[in-house]
């Protein structure tokens, strides 16, 4: 198998199983990995938040509280008071993306390598942004905001409605996809030592950075929508 075919095979998203309904519903590997990530995070939440007390918290509780407060502050500090109610959603996305983007360290294909995941995330983010705008400004105010600051901007603002999620999803997908391709190429050319070193950058640093960028941009869009 030549390099191109080998790479193509690595980039394929295989079907994990098929639900025997009608012609059969194929569930791909990304969805199954996402279920595993959700199950892992759920078990982690249960273990970490078990036996929380008000007075004299233990080391585990103190660390969890500090981490959650830090995460809420990292995202919440970019937002105004009206936007702060969306912080838990953004934190959940950050956690999901953080785990998804770095899961490649363990040799598992990151779900964000699949365009469906990033499109779903971007679509949800932009729907959330529009919902936040409608809740804050009501439908009439939200519609008027398309002509902000002047009426001539109307086409640009309508275009922005599609450009923002597109840029969000393509940035995330492009980065993770590119990182995966590079790592696969490196593994094919130099199978030892070098992939381990590059993995720290592409899987850890770039993965976490892209997770933060995605959430940061979404928080900015929400902020803009509720102002």
């Amino acid at each position: 198998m030549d390099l191109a075919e080998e790479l193509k095979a690595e980039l394929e998203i295989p079907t994990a199983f098929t639900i025997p309904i009608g012609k059969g519903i194929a569930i791909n590997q990304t969805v199954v990995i996402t279920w595993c990530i959700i199950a892992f995070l759920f078990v982690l939440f249960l273990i970490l938040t078990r036996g929380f007390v008000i007075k004299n918290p233990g080391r585990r509780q103190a660390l969890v509280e500090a981490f959650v407060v830090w995460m809420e502050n990292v995202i919440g500090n970019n937002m105004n008071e009206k936007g702060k109610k969306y912080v838990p959603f953004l934190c959940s996305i950050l956690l999901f993306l953080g785990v998804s983007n770095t899961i490649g360290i363990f040799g598992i294909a990151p779900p964000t390598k699949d365009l469906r995941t990033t499109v779903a995330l971007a679509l949800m983010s932009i729907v959330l942004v529009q919902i936040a705008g409608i809740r804050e400004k009501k439908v009439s105010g939200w519609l008027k905001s398309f002509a902000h600051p002047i009426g001539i901007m109307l086409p640009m603002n309508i275009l922005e409605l599609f450009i923002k999620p597109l840029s969000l999803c393509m940035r995330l997908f492009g980065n993770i996809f590119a990182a995966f391709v590079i790592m696969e190429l490196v593994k094919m050319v130099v199978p030892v030592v070098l992939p381990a070193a590059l993995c720290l950058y592409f899987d850890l640093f770039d993965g976490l950075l892209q997770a933060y960028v995605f959430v940061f941009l979404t928080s900015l869009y929400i902020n803009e929508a509720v102002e």
Partner: protein
Amino acid sequence: MLSFDPVNFICMIINILILYFLAKKFLFGRVDEIIKKRQEEIDTIYSTADRITKEAQDSRREYQMQLAEFEKERSEKMDEAIKEAEARKTAIVERSNAEAEEILTEARSEASRIRSMAEIDRDKQVEELVFDVASRLAGQAITEEANSELYDKFLSQATGAGSGKE
């Protein structure tokens, strides 16, 4: 690789929503709730401490006011007692002076009476002596020597009577 099928896309959206609800309920919800409860407890402790401090300050103020009142009352009573004692002292001294004056007056009048009685007594003795001498003179011949003797006797009696009176 870049294929797009709606089933898996919808599955991803559902997955993310499930993760959001799980994270909200089991991580952020629990942590935020515990932090909120702790904050409430801290606020309660602070408000209780503030209330106790305020109560203590009020009690202290009240105590100081009572103390000042007691001090004032004590001072008033002390002044009153001093005034009363002064008045009583003045009354006693005045009464004592009056009594002493009375006793002195009585003593003076008694002394005057005794003196006047002594004078009367002496005059009576002189009178008796004169009468005695006169009666003797009338009973015997008067010679130069007899006269001298009578005078001497009279004088010695008179002297004796005067010194006895005193």
